[in-house]
């Protein structure tokens, strides 16, 4: 009886503390999960842009230079009377999907090169890594500008130009991860039980590179959104009427001091997207650290 009482008391004394630690951990994980999930919400929102936008981004909807909050324009109207909010929403859609496309292409190229290099080893490895280092040691945006200048300015060419310089880092990460995984006992066991190279790579090595890749890629979204916006500002993107955030800021630069919103709102659109990328990257990093 006495023993049980002491035992119970001990349990009770312990319990609140344990619970507090649990709930703190839970809170942290929950916070990180929410942060990490933000890109999914943004992707859904930008895909719904046609439903969310109150007006068409191309047609005149009212008087020019209506200040934000007046005449039914939440973010005001631009120099010809188009709805700024609708244009920013469509522009965010273009920026976000472009950034995701470049990340996806970078991952495909980087993972392929990194995996082949790590699995093959020997001269294939040194050749591919020399090639990767070459791209890593060149200034990315400058090379992207040269590519676009050669192909002619358009959104597709800008994406190609940036994609050409955006894979080497992933290749390095994948190669490093695979090489450290290969030395682990479970890979040795897989090898000894006669599993072929292809299956070992696809089933046992590649999944192990996933955490590092996801964190890096999500941290890259913000950088990429900013880089693409800068190139679009320089006139490397789509031609005039299309709603592209960097180009919108550049074209409305002349109105900055009188009608600031025409130039500033597209920039804030970029800021939100880049912020979402950076926050989700931090959240994912926290989640991976907790594992």
């Amino acid at each position: 009886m006495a023993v049980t009482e002491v035992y119970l008391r001990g349990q009770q004394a312990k319990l609140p503390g344990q619970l507090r630690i649990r709930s703190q951990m839970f809170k942290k994980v929950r916070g990180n999960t929410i942060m990490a999930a933000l890109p999914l919400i943004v992707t859904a929102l930008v895909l719904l842009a046609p439903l969310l936008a109150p007006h068409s981004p191309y047609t005149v909807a009212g008087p020019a230079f209506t200040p934000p909050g007046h005449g039914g324009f939440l973010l005001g109207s631009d120099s010809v009377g188009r709805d700024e909010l609708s244009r920013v929403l469509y522009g965010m859609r273009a920026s976000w999907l472009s950034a995701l496309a470049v990340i996806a292409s970078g991952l495909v190229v980087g993972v392929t090169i990194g995996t082949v290099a790590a699995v093959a080893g020997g001269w294939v490895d040194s050749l591919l890594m020399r090639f990767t280092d070459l791209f890593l040691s060149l200034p990315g945006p400058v090379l992207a500008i040269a590519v676009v200048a050669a192909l002619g300015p358009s959104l597709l060419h800008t994406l190609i130009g940036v994609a050409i310089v955006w894979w080497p880092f992933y290749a390095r990460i994948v190669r490093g991860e695979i090489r450290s995984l290969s030395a682990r006992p479970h890979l040795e066991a897989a090898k000894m039980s006669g599993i072929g190279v292809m299956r070992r790579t696809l089933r046992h090595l590649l999944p192990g590179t996933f955490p590092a890749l996801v964190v890096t890629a999500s941290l890259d979204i913000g950088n990429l959104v900013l880089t693409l916006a800068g190139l679009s500002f320089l006139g490397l993107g789509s031609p005039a009427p299309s709603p592209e955030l960097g180009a919108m800021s550049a074209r409305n630069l002349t109105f900055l001091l009188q009608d600031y919103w025409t130039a500033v709102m597209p920039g804030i659109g970029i800021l939100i997207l880049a912020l979402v990328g950076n926050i989700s990257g931090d959240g994912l990093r926290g989640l991976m650290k907790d594992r």
Partner: protein
Amino acid sequence: MFKFVLKRIASAVGVVLALTVVLFILQKASNTNPVHAILGPNASAAAVKAETIKLGLNRPLLAQLFSYIGNLLQFNLGTSYRTRRPVSTDLAQYLPATVELALVALLIAVGLGLILGYISIKNGIPAKIFRGVLLVGASTPSYLISFAGLVLLYSHFHVLPATGEAGATQPFQGGFVIFDNLVNGNISGVWDGIVHVTLPALSIALVPAISIGRVFRSSLEATLRSDFVRTARSKGLSDQAVFLRHAIRNSIGPGLTMTGLQLGLMFAGVAVVEDIFAWPGIGYYTTESIPVSDFPAIAGVTLVLGVGYVFINALVDIAQSLADPRVKL
């Protein structure tokens, strides 16, 4: 040590050589025919043929590549389709202004980065707010910072000028304004240059400063946990002394490497900011050349910046191995 320096320089030369090959391939892949770009669309067939031979475009590709590299070694970067002048002449005119802007921006970025890194390792509410500011700052496009500066400091408070490299009293636009005036002992000219460079340089510097600050912060955190810092503290040194005498020198290396790497990323920002502030530099030259597909001009800019970037990073690596002999590449 000597071997290390030699190896690092050899690899830099290799990278530059590869860059020239990449540019040559891009030039061939470009859908602008150089002959038509020079002669215009209405040139006669005979003139086109003569120009093709003059440019050597009828020769085998490999021969063209070698003469391209040979020309580059003699600083012959071709003729701009737009200005009709040698690209090297154009670059010599526009480069100094960009170098001055980039140097000031770099100085601000490093100083600000170190301060940001130092403040953000402290604990408590202010540091938390500060980290939030860092996160937002890292997500801000450089032109938005310029806009904020223009609206506040130029339009609202009238403390800084909006455009150009120097005021109307300065006859010469382009070139090193601050440096030239400093050499000539013209103090008001120096001040004028500083006033004009502040806003553009600040707009460029903020994003790299934040990257440098983040890297510096993580290396500082690692250093402050190390044994020699504990020893320094236990022998009674103040926080300040530990930081200045022991921690900062051992954690500045990664920050320096980051600075070198940021230079490449900075260029997109430089071009945007030069465009906004009508700064007579090569970013401005680039933005003028892009819409008319002036490939020789862009190739020249790419080459100059690429060479600068590669060699500065080589120098950073060498400097780092001098400062810390444990660093090996």
